[in-house]
C-alpha cells in the first residue's frame, strides 16, 4: 500500500496532488509541440494539430491539419489549403474552429470534414487577427479576437452569431502581454493587462474599467500572464517579479500570493482545482519545468522532459507531450482518507479488513469491529464506493468496490443503488478510457457531462456499436438510447456514396427494422440533403407515419406521391395540406386532373370550395359533367340573388342542367317554380300584397283568404294541385276567414274527395259548433260517431254507436258523458254495451 501514495505530492498540510499517466501517445509526432498550433477539447476531447504553420511559410508546402483522439490515434487529417491560421479551438459540441488571419472562422467536425464558415466582421477583415481565443460560457462557445488595430471583437455564441466590438482601451500602443475573456453574471468581458494596470472591457456597457487586484504587493511588476479557471470563478495573475496572485475573478478577494522566483513569463498558466475543494492551485509551465503553486509556502515542482501542452479540465489539468498524456489533479478527500499513510478513517479500515479477510486472517474481524464500534460502517462503505470512482486503475477500483461490498454484508438495509450505479458508471468509464476510444473522462467530469452528452460524443466519433452497448448495459429507454443512436448511424450511412441506394436502404432497414422511436423521415431528410432523392424516397417507404412522410415528399417536389400518402393516413388536414400545395404548384388544368384520380382529395377540395370558392366548385362539376350538382348549385346561387330576374335566370340555368342530368322531375319542378315566381310577381303588382317566396300552397291559401276565389281556382288548375289537398287547403282557409257561407257552397259543389269529417273538424277548430253540426250527418257511418262527439251531440253519437254495435265507439261516447247531465244516456249505453259483450 505504501507504494500507492508514492506519486502523491503534498501542497500545504491538507492537500496532495498526483500526476498519473493516461496514455502513452501513439501519434509518433516528429515536431515539437511548440512548432504546432495545438488545441485540445475539454472533457477528454480530441486534439487538433496544425503542423509547420509557423516555421515554414513557403506557400508551396501545405501544412497538415490533423485531429487525434486523446490517446493519440489519428482520427483524420487534411492538408490546410485556406489562409493563414492564427488560432484553433473546440466548441462545446466538439467542432473545430479554425480562426484565420482575415477573421474568417472555418468550422470542421472531428473528422476534418468542413461544415461551414463565418466571418468575424469587416473590422477584423481589414485589420487582421493578431490573437484569438475560444471560450465557453453558459451561452455556448464564443470567439474573442484582438485585431491589428488593437481592438477587441467578440461573439458570445457562434451558433447565434452576434458580433460585438468592445470599447477602445485608452493608451494601448502595442498588443497587451496578456488578456483573457471573463464571464460573470451573464456578462462577457475582456480582461487585459497593460503594464501594472488591469482593464476590464465590458461588452454591454461599453465602459473601460481600471482595476487593481486587492492585496497585491506594491513591488509586483507588470502583469505578464493571466489565467481564468474552468468555471470562470477564479483568476490568477503572473507578474514580472515572478509572483503569482490568486483570487476571485471579480477581483474582489485575494486567496494568496506565491513567488515562484522565476521572472520569465510561463509558457502556460492554468488553474488546477477540484469542485468544492478548499485548496486552489495554479499550474505554471515553463520550457523544462512544471510548478503547482497554491496557498502554501512550498510548491510542487515537476521536471518536464519534453515540450508539453496543458489542457485545463473541470477537476485537474491534462498534460500533453510528444510521448505521454498525463493527468495532474488534487487527490479527492475520499481517496485521501482511505489511502493516506496510517489513516484510521473508516474507509481505510474497511479496505484493510477486506484484504485481511481474503488472507483469511482474524485481523479482518478486528478492523471491522473497530468500525462498527464507532458505528461508522455506512460511512466506510460510502467512502470506498466514492473513492473507487476517482481511480483510473481497474484493479484499484475493484479492490475498493470489493471492500464496499464486503462492508455492505454487515449492514441492514443499506441502499444498493449507489453501489450498483458506481459499478455501472465505472464500466462505462473504463470502456471509453480504452486507448482505442481515447476519452479519458474522470468520474467528476462524466457526472458533469451526463450520459446523454457522452453518448452524443460517441456518436460524433461514429462509435455506434459502443454507444449502443452502453445504452443496453445501462438499460436506457429505447427512445433516448438505442433508437436514437441507430437513427444517427442511419443518417451517417446515407452519406456513404459508394453504396447503391438499394443497398443503403436495405442495410438501414435491416438494422433498424421497426425499432421504436426511429424516424425514417429524419433519415430520409438527411439523404435528401446529401442529394440522394431516390434513396430518400426508398427510406420514406419504411416510415409508418404518413404525417412524417408528407412534408419531405412535398419538399422533394413529389407532390403526387405525397397526396397518396396523405390520403392513406386518413388525416384530412394532411390531405388539405397537400391539396393546397398542389393548387399553388400546378396549373389549374393539371391540378384538376390530379384530383380526378384521387376521389378522397377531390371530395375534400369540393368541401373546401363549398365554403370558400363556390365558383371553382362549378368548374369542378363541369369537368365531370355532373349536371345534377350543377343544377343544385344554380338553385343555391338563385337564392343569393337580390333581384327576381336574377333568381329566375339562375333557376333557368338549373332547369337546363336538370334536363341534361335527365332528372325530369327536378326539371319540371323548377319549371313550375319559375312559373310560380312570375305569377307571384304579377299578383304582387296587381294586388299590392307580398306574394313572392310564398309556397304554392300558401299562395293559394292567401288568395282564398283575400277572397280571390277565381284566381285560386285558376292556380289549382294550372298547377294541377291534387283535389284532396286543394279541398283541405280551401276549407282551412275559408274557416280562417270565417266565410262559412262559401264553405257550405263549396261543400255542395261536388262530392268531397276528403269526406266531410274534415269540415266538422275545421269548424270545431274555429269554435263554430253550429256550422260543424251541419256537416256531421254527411259524415259516413264509420266516422259519424267521432263527428258527433266533436260537435258535442252525445245523443246522436250514442245512437250512431249503438246502431253500429261498436264497443270501442260506445266507450268513447261514454267517456265523454258526465254523470250529472247525461246520466240516462250513459245508462243506455252501458246496457247496450253489456248486451254486446254478452254475445
Amino acid at each position, binding site marked *: 500500500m505504501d507504494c500507492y501514495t508514492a506519486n502523491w505530492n503534498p501542497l500545504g498540510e491538507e492537500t496532495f496532488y498526483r500526476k498519473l499517466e493516461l496514455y502513452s501517445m501513439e501519434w509518433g509526432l516528429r515536431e515539437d509541440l511548440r512548432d504546432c498550433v495545438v488545441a485540445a477539447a475539454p472533457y477528454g476531447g480530441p486534439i487538433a494539430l496544425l503542423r509547420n504553420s509557423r516555421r515554414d511559410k513557403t506557400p508551396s508546402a501545405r501544412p497538415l491539419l490533423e485531429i487525434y483522439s486523446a490517446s493519440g490515434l489519428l482520427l483524420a487529417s487534411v492538408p490546410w489549403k485556406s489562409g493563414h491560421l492564427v488560432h484553433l479551438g473546440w466548441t462545446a459540441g466538439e467542432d473545430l474552429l479554425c480562426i484565420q488571419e482575415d477573421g474568417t472562422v472555418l468550422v470542421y467536425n472531428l473528422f476534418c470534414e468542413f461544415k461551414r464558415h463565418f466571418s468575424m466582421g469587416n473590422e477584423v477583415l481589414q485589420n487582421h487577427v493578431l490573437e484569438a481565443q475560444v471560450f465557453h460560457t453558459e451561452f455556448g462557445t464564443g470567439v474573442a479576437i484582438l485585431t491589428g488595430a488593437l481592438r477587441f471583437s467578440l461573439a458570445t455564441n457562434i451558433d447565434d452569431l452576434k458580433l460585438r466590438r468592445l470599447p477602445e482601451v485608452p493608451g494601448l500602443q502595442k498588443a497587451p502581454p496578456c488578456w483573457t475573456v471573463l464571464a460573470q453574471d451573464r456578462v462577457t468581458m475582456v480582461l487585459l493587462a497593460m503594464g501594472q494596470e488591469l482593464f476590464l472591457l465590458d461588452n454591454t456597457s461599453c465602459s473601460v474599467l481600471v482595476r487593481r487586484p486587492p492585496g497585491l504587493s506594491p513591488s509586483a511588476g507588470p502583469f505578464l500572464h493571466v489565467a481564468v479557471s474552468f468555471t470562470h470563478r477564479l483568476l490568477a495573475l503572473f507578474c514580472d517579479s515572478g509572483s503569482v496572485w490568486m483570487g476571485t475573478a471579480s477581483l474582489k478577494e485575494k486567496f494568496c500570493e506565491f513567488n515562484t522566483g522565476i521572472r520569465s513569463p510561463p509558457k502556460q498558466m492554468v488553474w488546477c482545482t477540484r469542485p468544492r475543494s478548499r485548496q486552489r492551485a495554479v499550474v505554471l509551465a515553463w520550457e523544462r519545468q512544471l510548478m503547482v503553486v497554491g496557498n502554501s509556502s512550498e510548491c510542487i515542482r515537476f521536471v518536464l522532459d519534453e515540450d508539453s501542452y496543458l489542457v485545463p479540465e473541470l477537476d485537474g489539468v491534462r498534460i500533453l507531450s510528444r510521448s505521454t498524456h498525463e493527468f495532474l489533479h488534487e487527490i479527492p478527500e475520499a481517496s485521501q482518507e482511505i489511502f493516506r499513510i496510517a489513516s484510521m478513517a473508516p474507509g481505510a479500515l474497511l479496505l484493510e479488513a477486506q484484504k485481511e479477510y481474503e488472507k483469511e486472517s482474524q485481523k479482518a474481524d478486528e478492523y471491522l469491529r473497530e468500525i462498527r464500534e464507532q458505528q461508522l460502517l455506512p460511512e466506510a462503505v460510502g467512502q470506498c464506493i466514492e473513492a473507487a470512482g476517482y481511480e483510473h486503475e481497474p484493479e484499484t477500483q475493484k479492490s475498493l468496490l470489493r471492500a464496499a461490498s464486503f462492508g455492505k454484508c454487515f449492514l441492514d438495509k443499506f441502499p444498493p443503488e449507489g453501489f450498483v450505479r458506481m459499478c455501472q458508471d465505472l464500466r462505462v468509464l473504463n470502456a471509453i478510457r480504452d486507448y482505442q476510444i481515447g476519452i479519458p473522462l474522470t468520474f467528476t467530469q462524466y457526472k458533469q457531462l451526463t450520459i446523454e452528452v457522452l453518448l452524443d460524443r460517441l456518436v460524433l466519433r461514429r462509435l455506434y456499436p459502443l454507444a449502443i452497448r452502453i445504452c443496453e448495459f445501462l438499460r436506457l429507454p*429505447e*427512445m433516448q438510447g438505442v*433508437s436514437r443512436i441507430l437513427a444517427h448511424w442511419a443518417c451517417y450511412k446515407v452519406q456513404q456514396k459508394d453504396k447503391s441506394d438499394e443497398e443503403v436502404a436495405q442495410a438501414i432497414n435491416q438494422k433498424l427494422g*421497426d*425499432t*421504436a*422511436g426511429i424516424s425514417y423521415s429524419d433519415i430520409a431528410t438527411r439523404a435528401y440533403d446529401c442529394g440522394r432523392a431516390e434513396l430518400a424516397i426508398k427510406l420514406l417507404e419504411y416510415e*409508418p*407515419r404518413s404525417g412524417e412522410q408528407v412534408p419531405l415528399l412535398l419538399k422533394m417536389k413529389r407532390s403526387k406521391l405525397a397526396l397518396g400518402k396523405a390520403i*392513406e*393516413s*386518413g*388525416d*384530412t*388536414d394532411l390531405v*388539405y*395540406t397537400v391539396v*393546397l400545395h398542389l393548387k399553388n404548384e400546378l396549373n389549374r388544368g393539371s391540378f384538376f386532373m390530379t384530383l380526378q384520380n384521387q*376521389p*378522397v382529395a377531390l*371530395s*375534400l377540395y*369540393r*368541401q373546401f370550395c*363549398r365554403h*370558400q370558392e363556390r365558383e371553382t366548385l362549378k368548374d369542378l362539376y363541369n369537368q365531370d359533367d355532373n349536371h*345534377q350538382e350543377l343544377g*343544385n348549385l344554380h*338553385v*343555391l346561387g338563385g*337564392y*343569393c*340573388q*337580390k*333581384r*327576381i330576374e336574377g*333568381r329566375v335566370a339562375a333557376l333557368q340555368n338549373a332547369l337546363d342542367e336538370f334536363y341534361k342530368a335527365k332528372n325530369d*322531375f*327536378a326539371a319540371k*319542378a*323548377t319549371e*313550375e*317554380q319559375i312559373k*310560380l315566381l312570375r305569377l307571384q310577381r304579377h299578383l304582387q303588382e296587381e294586388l299590392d300584397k307580398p306574394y*313572392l*317566396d*310564398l*309556397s*304554392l*300552397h300558401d299562395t293559394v291559401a292567401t288568395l282564398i283568404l283575400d277572397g280571390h276565389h277565381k284566381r285560386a281556382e285558376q292556380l289549382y288548375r294550372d*298547377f294541377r*294541385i*291534387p283535389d*284532396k*289537398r286543394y*279541398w*283541405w*287547403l280551401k276549407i*282551412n282557409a275559408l274557416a280562417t276567414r270565417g266565410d262559412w257561407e262559401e264553405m257550405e257552397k263549396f261543400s255542395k259543389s261536388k262530392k268531397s274527395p*276528403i269526406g266531410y269529417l274534415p269540415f266538422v273538424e275545421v269548424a270545431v277548430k274555429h269554435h263554430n259548433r253550429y256550422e260543424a253540426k251541419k256537416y256531421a250527418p254527411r259524415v259516413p257511418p264509420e266516422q259519424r260517431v267521432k263527428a258527433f262527439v266533436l260537435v258535442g251531440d252525445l245523443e246522436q253519437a250514442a245512437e250512431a254507436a249503438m246502431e253500429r254495435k261498436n264497443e270501442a265507439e260506445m266507450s268513447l261516447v261514454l267517456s265523454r258523458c258526465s254523470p250529472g247531465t247525461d246520466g240516462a244516456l250513459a245508462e243506455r249505453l252501458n246496457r247496450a254495451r253489456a248486451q254486446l259483450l254478452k254475445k
Partner: protein
Amino acid sequence: REDRGRSPQRDFHILFVPRRSLLCEQWLKEQGVLGSFIHREQYSLDLIPFDGDLLSMESESAFKECYLESDQTSLYHAAKGLMTLQALYGTIPQIFGKGDCARHVANMMIRMKREFPGSQNSIFPVFDTLLLLDRNVDLLTPLATQLTYEGLIDEIYGIQNTYVKLPPEKFAPKKQGEGGKDLPTEPKKLQLNSAEELYAEIRDKNFNAVGSVLSKKAKIISAAFEERHHAKTVGEIKQFVSQLPHMQAARSSLANHTSIAELIKDITTSEDFFDNLTVEQEFMSGIDTDKVNNYIEDCIAQKHPLIKILRLVCLQSVCNSGLKQKVLDHYKREILQTYGYEHILTLNNLEKAGLLKPQTGGRNNYPTIRKTLRLWMDDVNEQNPNDISYVYSGYAPLSVRLAQLLARPGWRSIEEVLKMLPGPHFEERQQLPTGLQKKRQHGENRVTLVFFLGGVTYAEIAALRFLSQMEDGGTEYIIATTKLINGTTWIKSLMEKLEPAPF
C-alpha cells in the same frame, strides 16, 4: 373552436378543438389576424363522456359530411378518439364492423397502431370487442318515434348535452294561497343523467311503464317520511334526520319527473300522436308501404311541420327498400308545392343519403330483413320487457339487433341479411402481448364497445342497456357515437338551409 378574450387591449389566444386545422389557420391568416394570437394551441377533444356508459363526439355534421359530402374528417377524429381510449383502457382485441365508414375507421386504427410500434400498450384490456356501425346500415331506427321515457323527452323537448329545457308551468312551486300567481316564465332547465337514482331507473323504460314506477316511488317516499312519527328514541330520530337529505332529493326528483311525465302524457295521448305512431308502426311491420299513404297526404294538406312529413316519407321509403317512382314523385311534388320549391335541395340531400330513393330492381328487401332479424315483434311487453323491441313498442332497432346477434350466435348466422345491408362487414383482430390475454372467469361479462358512426338515438342506447342487464346476456355494452340524435335533429342536419334574399 373558441376565442378567448374580446377587448382589443387584451392578449388573444386561440384554442382549437378538437384539433388545429390548416384550413382554419389559413383562413385566419387571410383575414390578417393569425399573427395577433399569442398562443395557438389545440385541445384534442375527441370523445366526451356523457354518462357512465356513453361517449359522444358531439360532431353535429358528422353524418352529413360522411354520407353526403364524402368528407371523412369526423371519422379520423373518431379513430383518434378510439386510439386514445385504447391508450387508456388497453388494446381492444376484436374489432367488428359493418359499413364503409366502419371499414375506414378500422383501417385508420390499424394504421395508427402501426405508426407507433414501440409504444406497446401494457394495459390490461377493459374492452373485449369493438363494434363499429355505420348509421346508414340502419337508417330506419332514428326515423321512428322513440317511446322510451328519455327518448320521448328528447323527441318532444330536445336534450342538449344532457340538459333539457321544459315549459315552466308544471314546475311552479306549489304553495298554499298563492297558487298560479306568478308563474315562472323562464324555461325549467334540468340535467338528465344516471347520477339521479330515479332517472337511472326510468330513463330506459317504455313510457307506458313509467307511470307505475312513479306512483310506487311516491308511496315509498311518503311512507319513508311517515316514519318520523314512529321514531321514538333520540337515536331513531338521529337516523331519520341523517337520511333526510337523501329523501328530500328523492322527493324533488320524483316531483320533477312526475311533472315531465304529465307533460309527455298530454302529448302521447293526443290523437295526432296516436295517428302518427299508427302509421309508423304500419310501415315498420310492412303494411301498405308501397303506395301513397293517406295520413301523410292529409298531413301535407294541413301543412304539418315539414320535418314530421320528411320523417314519415323517409320511413316509408326505407321500409319499402325505396318507393315506386310514381309514389316518390307524388310525395316530392306535394312537398314542394306545399312547403316551397327551395326544398328541392333538401330532398336531393335525402336521396343522396339513401333515406329517400326510388326502388331499383323492383325488389323489396325489407320484409326479408325484418323477418330474419325479427325487427317486428307483435307480442311486445312494455311493462316487463323480454326483448329490445319494447323501446319502440314493437319495433326492435336494427342496429341493436346486429349487436345482439354478434354476441350470440355470431354474424355468420345472418350472412345473407348482412349482404343486403349497405357496406362491407368485417372482423379484425389486434394482437395482444401474451401477458395481457384475458382468461375469462366463468360468468364474467364480456365488454363490447359499440361505436355508432353518424349518430345514435336514446332508444337505441336504452335497448343496449337492456341487453347489458339481461341476466343471461353475458355482454355489457358501452356506447360511443359521433352525435346523439333523434329523427328531427337528424333530418334537420340534412336539410339545406336556404334563406332567400328578400326582394
